[in-house]
């Protein structure tokens, strides 16, 4: 046998190698293309044309909401993919090679991020040029929130995959969490119209920090300092969730997770528990959300008012 090259087993090189192949595999998967590109764009067109009826003032706000859904999609995609790979015995083949859980997990997060970015870009361009969004918003803030949001929600998905034993179990848990993320964060229904107790409850959800951050960034209604708190919340979320998913990672389909290990999931929620307590006690986030919503309503009534001439 010809031994052609000598290379090192470097975790960063392994992560990049796995990232590239994951991207290639995803591009060959029609389901992935549907959920990562067609469905988010479908949501964008539906929200803009049906709910906002094309009113320019709301376009930026809707873009923030749709970007949130696009980024949160990582949660579903990665958990399902990891469980599939484990159930089919694909992970155990990788286990034989000199690679650890870190590169396996990191590559799924990085590849998902790189494949989410084109959809994010298309959504922004469609809003700006097709729907005449008034300004670009705070693109730097959008970039940071999408980056850390994608990594955080990917890590949450990986945790779910690690603590569930079957695909069926994964789907049920995903559905429960996803529903809470989607409807209690401001990603679909503006938080400002909810009763106060729901608004307070939403401050414990990671999705709220992504949704309100992105909506504030696209509408350009928040200061850089206000958006920074969302970025910090998501960054802490990524670090904690990634480490927990690494600790809980299982290569083998028959290696069932113990009920005790499932308690680790609660640890992933600790940062948001702390943020939630802080925001409820001393934060200004809810005030900011209500303020931004009122501003948008004023803009809308100003636009729709009859002119004098």
């Amino acid at each position: 046998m010809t031994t052609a090259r000598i290379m090192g087993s470097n975790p960063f090189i392994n992560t990049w190698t796995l990232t590239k192949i994951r991207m290639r595999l995803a591009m060959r998967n029609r389901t992935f293309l549907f959920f990562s590109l067609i469905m988010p764009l479908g949501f964008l067109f539906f929200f803009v044309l049906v709910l906002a009826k094309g009113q320019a003032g709301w376009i930026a706000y809707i873009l923030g909401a749709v970007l949130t859904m696009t980024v949160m999609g990582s949660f579903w995609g990665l958990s399902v993919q990891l469980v599939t790979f484990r159930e089919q015995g694909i992970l155990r083949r990788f286990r034989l090679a000199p690679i650890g859980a870190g590169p396996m997990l990191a590559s799924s997060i990085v590849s998902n991020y790189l494949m989410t970015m084109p959809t994010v870009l298309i959504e922004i361009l469609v809003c700006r040029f097709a729907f005449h969004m008034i300004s670009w918003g705070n693109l730097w803030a959008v970039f940071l929130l999408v980056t850390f949001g994608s990594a955080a929600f990917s890590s949450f998905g990986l945790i779910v995959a690690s603590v569930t034993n079957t695909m069926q179990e994964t789907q049920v848990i995903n559905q429960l969490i996803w529903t809470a993320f989607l409807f209690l964060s401001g990603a679909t229904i503006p938080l400002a119209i909810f009763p106060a107790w729901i608004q307070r409850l939403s401050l414990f959800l990671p999705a709220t920090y992504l949704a309100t951050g992105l909506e504030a960034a696209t509408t350009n209604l928040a200061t850089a300092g206000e958006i920074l708190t969302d970025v910090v919340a998501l960054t802490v979320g990524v670090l904690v969730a990634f480490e927990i998913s690494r600790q809980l990672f299982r290569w083998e389909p028959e290696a069932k997770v113990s009920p005790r290990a499932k308690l680790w999931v609660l640890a992933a929620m600790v940062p948001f528990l702390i943020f939630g307590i802080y925001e409820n006690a001393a934060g200004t986030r809810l005030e900011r959300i209500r303020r931004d919503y009122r501003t948008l309503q004023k803009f809308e009534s100003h636009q729709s008012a009859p002119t004098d001439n």
Partner: protein
Amino acid sequence: MSIPVIQVEGLYKNYGAVEALRGVSFEVEEGEVFGLLGPNGAGKTSTVEILEGMRTPDRGLARVCGLDPEKSGFEFKEQIGAVLQSTSLPDKIRVKEAIELFAKFYRRHANTDDLLKRFQLEEKRTAFYSQLSGGQKQRLALAMALVNDPSVVFLDEPTAGLDPQVRREIYDIIEELKRDKKTVLLTTHYIEEAERLCDRVAIVDQGRVIALGTPRDLKHASAGTTRIEVRLTKPVADGELARLEGVTDCRQFDGAYVMHSSRPPQTIVALVKQLEAESNELQSLEMFSPSLEDAFIELTGRRLRE
């Protein structure tokens, strides 16, 4: 005295109430093709997966190239190659991509084109994994096991479920490994595989090694008897055939009487006389020279694939 490449001492493994391994011990020398032969559930896969670092033994010692498979991490993984019994690859990965992908994980690795050629996968290099036949998937698994040019190769039932033609192709590859002086640990429940490929064989049953030696030694240990299998039109009384001249052992399997005889011609003459006297008739008669199957039957009282 040379240190064995694979060393297993008093290995125990339980899965809940099931005792999969009950003190398995053996050693494999460098360049040896060593077989673990036994029926399903005998403990072969558990043994191999402990040696691959995929499972933790409850008790006992396992060493490969002097390394503890469980604790030596990547250093250990660089040394071994393996074909797992139950594994898969993503459906949409191409053959060449799969080999290249795994090659990149190792410090030392083989040329992808050489492997494709050696395993007759050149024509399938751009095919998706899901488009491959069972034999092609197994050839790819073998190619991937050798992607790091390992010194020790574990093959867990590499020909299970494959048709005879593909099985023979796999045998050729394993014989090539033998010529390359690779140390190979092979598990199988095919007698002919163990006889043809293995330098030494450990017969495993119910979590224990019940016999160990070269295929020739094991066959001779089965008293050097010829196996005679007969089917009769009418059943005979228990023990009647065991009393025939030359018969050392007689058991009934699936409606056939399996006798072991040290003097086959005399046994057959005696059998024919007995059947005539009882107005019974032969439906079929087959004779086999001593095989590992006989050794297994003698040791366990069961066939390998029961």
